[in-house]
């Protein structure tokens, strides 16, 4: 791959630009509110883990993380298992309305959550799912299922059709072929799709906040509580923010070798 002159300098400047704001958040999270407000310090002079301790000991805080993880996982599982057969169908077969259906699905990936916030609130209240992880997980299917179909379709298409034909000639039934042969072949694609479902479900707030009140409130929504009559609790806010970055960072670390291919969505 051919690169450009000064690439190292460009890369370093850009990475610093990415990391500096994150560093500042981490820095703040280890400071006391007194230090934050009174002086400008580049690193915590009186480092404290009190902010983190508060989060880990207060149930209303840490349960926010559990709620978030719950609906993200449910959503990822639903999205992938629903999208797999559809991706196969779009990749292999022509059927009435296939192109329109594909476009319609894709257009939902682009639908603004703001449009759906209120109707979702009504819908999930009506079917008694309001304030459960299921409500958020199902709501996030709106954009994650189409995305998963789109990504997986690219990966299924990269599996030669002859493999299906051979399997059927060998007497495999369709479900058995699907689970024993196709799924292992596109395992990395499933990983990529799961990564993206995780990502978009994890980062979304508007719907997650609208569809929950107490029992399933995501961490991102809990964070807004740091505004109080006494002003902002910056240290606590920063600590909570840092803790929301960690799951994402862990996921990235595990998929680092697939990131490049993953971002091409299997279709370069």
């Amino acid at each position, binding site marked *: *791959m*051919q*690169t*450009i002159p000064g690439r*190292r300098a460009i*890369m370093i400047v850009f990475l610093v*630009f*990415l990391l*500096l*704001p994150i560093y*500042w*958040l981490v820095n703040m999270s280890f400071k006391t509110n007194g230090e934050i*407000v009174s002086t*400008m310090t580049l690193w915590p002079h009186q480092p404290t883990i009190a902010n983190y301790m508060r989060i880990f000991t207060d149930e209303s805080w840490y349960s926010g993380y559990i709620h978030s993880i719950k609906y993200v996982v449910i959503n990822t599982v*639903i999205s992938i298992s*629903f999208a797999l057969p*559809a991706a196969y*169908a779009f*990749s*292999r*077969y*022509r*059927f*009435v309305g296939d192109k329109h*259906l594909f476009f319609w699905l894709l257009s*939902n*990936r*682009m*639908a*603004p959550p*703001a*449009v*759906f*916030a*209120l*109707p979702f609130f*009504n*819908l999930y209240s009506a079917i008694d799912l309001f304030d459960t992880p299921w409500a958020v997980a199902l*709501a996030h*299917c*709106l954009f994650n*299922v189409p995305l998963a179909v789109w990504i997986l379709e690219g990966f299924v298409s990269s599996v030669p*059709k002859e493999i299906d034909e051979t399997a059927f000639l060998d007497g495999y039934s369709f479900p058995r072929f699907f689970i024993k042969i196709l799924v292992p072949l596109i395992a990395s694609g499933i990983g990529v799709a799961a990564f993206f479902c995780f990502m978009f479900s994890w*980062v*979304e*707030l*508007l719907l997650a906040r609208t569809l929950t009140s107490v029992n399933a409130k995501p961490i*991102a929504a809990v964070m807004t509580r740091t505004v109080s009559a006494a002003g902002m609790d910056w240290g606590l*806010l920063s600590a909570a*923010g840092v803790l*929301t*970055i960690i799951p*994402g960072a862990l996921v*990235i670390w595990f998929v*680092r070798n697939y*990131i*490049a291919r993953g*971002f*091409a969505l299997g279709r*370069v």
Partner: protein
Amino acid sequence: MDKTVNQKAWLLVAPVFLIVAFSAVLPLMTVVNYSVQDTFGNNQFFWNGIGWFKELLDPSTDLGSRFFASLWRNLFFSAVILAIEIPLGIVVALSMPREGWRVAACLVILALPLLIPWNVVGTIWQVFGRPDIGLLGYTLNHLGVNYNYVSNEIDAWATIIVMDVWHWTSLVALLCYAGLKSIPDAYYQAAQIDGASRWAVFTAIQLPKMKRVLLIAGLLRFMDSFMIYTEPFVVTGGGPGNSTTFISIELVKIALGQFDLGKAAALSLVYNLIILITCWIFYTVMTNAGADHKARTGEA
């Protein structure tokens, strides 16, 4: 790949169709229902026909003026961030290290902002940009720049744009990097043999080969910036004044803030329609480019 005609494929697609229809069509029907009615509270609804739409599309009314103002603001925002993020993303992708642990390190750091919840992105920039406690705001003010994103419109815009560049340029860069990785070495070798300059390699090989991923990047970035809500809401709350109130922020204000369901529903439908049309244009361009692409790889 030749596809066989098989109507039974609908059975495989049905689950996806049902779940997305449940999530998309049902709520949209409620929206349509609201959009033609008026309410005086207490769940009393009155038929209002296309009244809300008329008001929405007439810039002389309050609703219309707010809609158009936020629409232009949003389009301007999308244009600016596309103009920055696409070229910057290409440059960053071209600056990736060649191999070894550095590649993995760069990829992980690049992907990091993408996995941060959107309101935390807002929080990060709030904390980073405040003149009193933020490194950026503090430094700028001490360098003599009177920077305050809470009170100054231009500063607020600059902050939101820089924040979006920070948040999303990586997506463009990673897509472009994936596109660049897929170019066979033979192309670069042939260009070397043909005596091509670096610029010629870029325009004759790299850019054409990145066309598809750039389209995807452009589509995703346009759409996501067009429906941006959380990040600017956390940082500026739409202000100062209404200077950073984008369509989604306006919509949530009307729907959840004022509970003006009819107006919100009409706005939602028009908003959705704009997105649908843009999406369709991109999709058509992309499938055409895709047909090209498939024809080419099919032959090779």
